[in-house]
């Protein structure tokens, strides 16, 4: 494993802006063709939510670039990240399995997009906690 230093570059910022623009364009197309109308994640349509997500990504990317913080990612961090990812993956699969059983017993009636967002947040939280625990170990 090699040592690497991660730094915000204009190229990485450009990619993020491109992705953000893509999302905004996609949202506009959805709204133009009246696809996904109806309440979605606090917005009046799916397209509006996608446009909001696009703007949010652009804002976060801009703020992060302005900070210009040099971040070191060395081999120890890579090792910890790798192990944390493996543990998170195992917990994620176990959680989904338990949810399958739970749904069989007591039907989960939460809307799909909300349910998926909860799962994503849960996975990020598990990864964060696992990383912190392994950081102390290594």
């Amino acid at each position, binding site marked *: *494993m*090699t*040592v690497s*230093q991660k730094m915000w570059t204009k190229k990485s910022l450009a990619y993020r802006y491109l992705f953000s623009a893509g999302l905004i364009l996609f949202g506009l197309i959805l709204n133009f063709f009246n696809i996904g109308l109806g309440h979605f994640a606090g917005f009046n349509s799916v397209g509006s939510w996608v446009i909001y997500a696009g703007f949010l990504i652009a804002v976060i990317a801009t703020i992060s670039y302005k900070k210009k913080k040099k971040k*070191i990612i*060395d*081999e*120890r*961090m890579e090792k910890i990240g790798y192990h944390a990812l493996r543990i998170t993956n195992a917990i994620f699969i176990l959680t989904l399995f338990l949810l399958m059983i739970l749904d069989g017993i007591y039907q989960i009636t939460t809307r799909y997009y909300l349910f998926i967002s909860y799962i994503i947040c849960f996975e990020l939280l598990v990864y964060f906690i696992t990383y912190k625990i392994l*950081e102390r*170990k*290594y």
Partner: protein
Amino acid sequence: MKTKITELRKKLKMTQQELADKVEVSRQTIISLEQGKYNPSLELAYRITKALKVKKIEDVFELK
């Protein structure tokens, strides 16, 4: 793995941050190495040996 990093570093009057900057790792990695919690790769071990101005890796790192 046992290390003599702390001892050799203090001989050169170097801080952990200075050593970390020299070998291009984080200070936390240097702390973990000194505490014997983390075993470095061969490349990192060579870099540390060079930074501490020692000739042999065995003079810095020792198998427990």
